[in-house]
């Protein structure tokens, strides 16, 4: 066993190349607002531009096959990229995108060769930012109960229905969604998976007012929407994986949403909280010397380390193509409940300071206030904590008579 990543001379040379490239290409004035809802359109544009530049080198989605716009790199190289980007507080992709991480993974497994050649390069090189449209008012955990309907009409499908909790600030180029194509067919055999250009007539996008739009874990979307489809005509070519095969296609991105890809991101809020306690005085002494706060700091540290290691383990399993079973949902479950626990420990440790964004008084420019909200909201995206437990139990072979296997990622 070796936790330390050791680098070959070739990899060290790659690191030097990445470092020089980033120095020349990361805009110096990139801002990361503590509340992602405050990301300006201009700043978003800069992130997209950086994404396209990374994409042109195959570095936006570095482990995807190069023939589809990925970098064809191994995990170790991908880690180097992530580490170097982390020095700028960035990760891949440098903005919210459900395309490369989830949608492209599904197309890669389930799309025809022609579809892969058409859809993947723009997704993987950052030409398109993509939203996922799964949930509906009546179908959240029970995703297979979606009602949005697609009806074949010549070489098009006509889509009608409503999706909720969708997307991000500043729009997207492409949407992918799960809809009913055969209302008569049995559950899981009635659905199809579509890629839908966001500018088709009949699509209406309305913002939702939420406590905040996402939690620590993925790039935060900043905003969610209700999306209405009113007779939207989508070319049949945009149906991925064949008619009524949509549930299978979905298992790939659901596996990833359930944590199956792992996580190698630092817990930015926990780290900044710890640093804050070490450097801020209250009652004349550093917070870290207050025995109560010290206990709280250790508790936060332990919790974030456990999640880090579960994330690392799962990342390794997935990228080294090792067998996986319950690890993804376990990571997702632990990450979510740990975030809420950490939020409450911080509330206890720093008192009402945790709840303000006031320029004069807020610690870390309001990062903690946002985290208080984000930790609550973050319990739900990608499947509730209960659902993660359900899946974990199935994978452990105690949820159903037949042990469930992890979804296909390749």
């Amino acid at each position: 066993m070796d936790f330390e990543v050791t680098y070959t001379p070739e990899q060290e040379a790659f690191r030097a190349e990445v470092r020089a490239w980033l120095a020349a290409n990361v805009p110096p004035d990139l801002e990361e607002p503590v509340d992602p809802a405050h990301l300006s359109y201009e700043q978003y544009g800069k992130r997209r531009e950086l994404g396209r530049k990374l994409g042109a080198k195959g570095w936006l989605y570095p482990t995807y096959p190069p023939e589809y716009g990925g970098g064809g790199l191994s995990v170790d190289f991908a880690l180097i990229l992530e580490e170097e980007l982390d020095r700028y507080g960035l990760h891949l992709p440098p903005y919210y995108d459900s395309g490369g991480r989830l949608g492209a993974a599904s197309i890669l497994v389930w799309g025809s060769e022609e579809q892969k050649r058409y859809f993947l390069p723009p997704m993987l090189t950052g030409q398109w930012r993509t939203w996922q449209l799964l949930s509906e008012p009546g179908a959240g955990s029970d995703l297979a109960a979606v009602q949005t309907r697609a009806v074949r009409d010549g070489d098009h499908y006509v889509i009608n229905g409503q999706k909720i909790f969708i997307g991000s600030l500043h729009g997207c180029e492409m949407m992918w969604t799960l809809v009913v194509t055969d209302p008569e067919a049995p559950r899981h055999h009635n659905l199809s998976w579509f890629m839908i250009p966001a500018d088709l007539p009949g699509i209406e996008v309305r913002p939702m007012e939420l406590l905040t739009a996402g939690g620590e874990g993925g790039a935060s979307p900043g905003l969610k929407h209700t999306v209405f489809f009113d007779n939207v005509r989508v070319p049949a070519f945009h149906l991925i994986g064949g008619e009524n095969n949509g549930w299978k296609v979905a298992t790939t991105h659901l596996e990833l949403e359930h944590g199956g890809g792992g996580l190698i991101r630092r817990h930015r809020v926990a780290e900044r909280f710890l640093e804050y306690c070490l450097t801020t005085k209250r009652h004349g002494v550093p917070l870290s010397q207050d025995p109560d706060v010290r206990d709280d700091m250790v508790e936060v540290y332990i919790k974030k380390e456990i999640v880090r290691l579960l994330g690392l383990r799962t990342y390794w399993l997935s990228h080294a193509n090792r067998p996986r079973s319950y690890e993804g949902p376990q990571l997702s479950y632990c990450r979510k409940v740990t975030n809420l626990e950490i939020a409450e420990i911080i509330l206890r440790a720093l008192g009402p300071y945790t709840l303000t964004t006031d320029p004069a008084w807020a610690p870390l420019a309001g990062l903690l206030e946002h985290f208080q909200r984000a930790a609550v909201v973050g319990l739900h995206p990608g499947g509730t904590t209960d659902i993660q437990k359900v899946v974990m139990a199935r994978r452990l072979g105690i949820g159903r008579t037949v042990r469930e296997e992890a979804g296909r990622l390749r």
Partner: protein
Amino acid sequence: MDLSLSDAQELLKASVAHFVQQECPKEVLLALEMTPTGTTPQLMRKMAELGWLGILIPEAYGGAGRSFTDAAVLFEELGKGPVCGPYFTSSVLGALLVLHGGSEEQKRALLPQVARGTCVLGVAVTEADYGWQPQAVQLRAHRQGDHYRLSGVKLFVHDAQAATHLLCAVRTGDDPRGGITLLVVEVPTAGLTVRSLPGWMGQVDEVRFEQVQVPATAVLGGVEGRGWDVLEAAALQAIPILCAYKVGSCQAVVDMALAYSRTRVQFGQPIGRFQRVQDHIIAMVNHLDAARWTTYEALWKLDSGRPAAASVHLAKAVTSEAYVKVCDGAHEVHAGVGVMREYGLTLHTQRSRALYHLLGDPRTHRRRLADALGW
């Protein structure tokens, strides 16, 4: 033994419930949440007419002179809203401070007006070095002739924006406890600024003093150095009423989760059938009941003149934690819909966090509990 409410209390409860339903429906509360005071002149007037703003104030000073438990019944129902506004701060904590510490003249000047809603008391204790122990009161009041001069900041003061008078804990001497004095500062006063603090905290403010002059007659009770004793005595009686507010809040949140788990269908059945959902709700109900009965016993001890300190600390430690956990559970049960602002659950989530530290957080009260038990 009889753990039920009296008929009069049941009547009060029903009329407050009706009031909250009529005057403070969810849409109104969602709008009030965003305002600096959390109330309106009309609401203040109606509550005053119903006698609720003077519920603890003796009849001799224009109040209703009712028991702590009666006041708790009122606040438990308000907590269900959750109704925001300065009612607890002014009519419970503030009024009790004046009752415990004020001179006869101050009682006559302030209390009838508090009951009428024409005077709103704010209570400014905490500072940048936040805490609810006497050492945390550092703002100095310098005596100069017949007045005091103050410069400094009181921070995380609840309901200061609504206040016409601020009861400020200030330092007039070096003794950690015996050096604290309460001053009645009128709003507005030259050099005094009150500012709402932005964020997820509701009606919580910064109060800034720049060379503020306060007449020496503003000392509560007329004698320096009694401030902390008065604050402790008033807090001991006010805390169970704050706890009752949170009990009401917990009840409302549990009710929301129960109703939702009966009506929301996933996988062809109401989600309440899932044992995982049941587990959330059972944990919530356990928190609610722990909060409720620790609070009620503390109230009974206060009303029957028994030593109540340990029970009060117990109730405060349990209840503040309970409100947070009950909201967490409700978010698990509601998932997506619960974080939509218009649904109303986040009003509670916000208050569960914003009230967590008021008058001492659970850790403070656990410690005080051990002291009170003589350990």
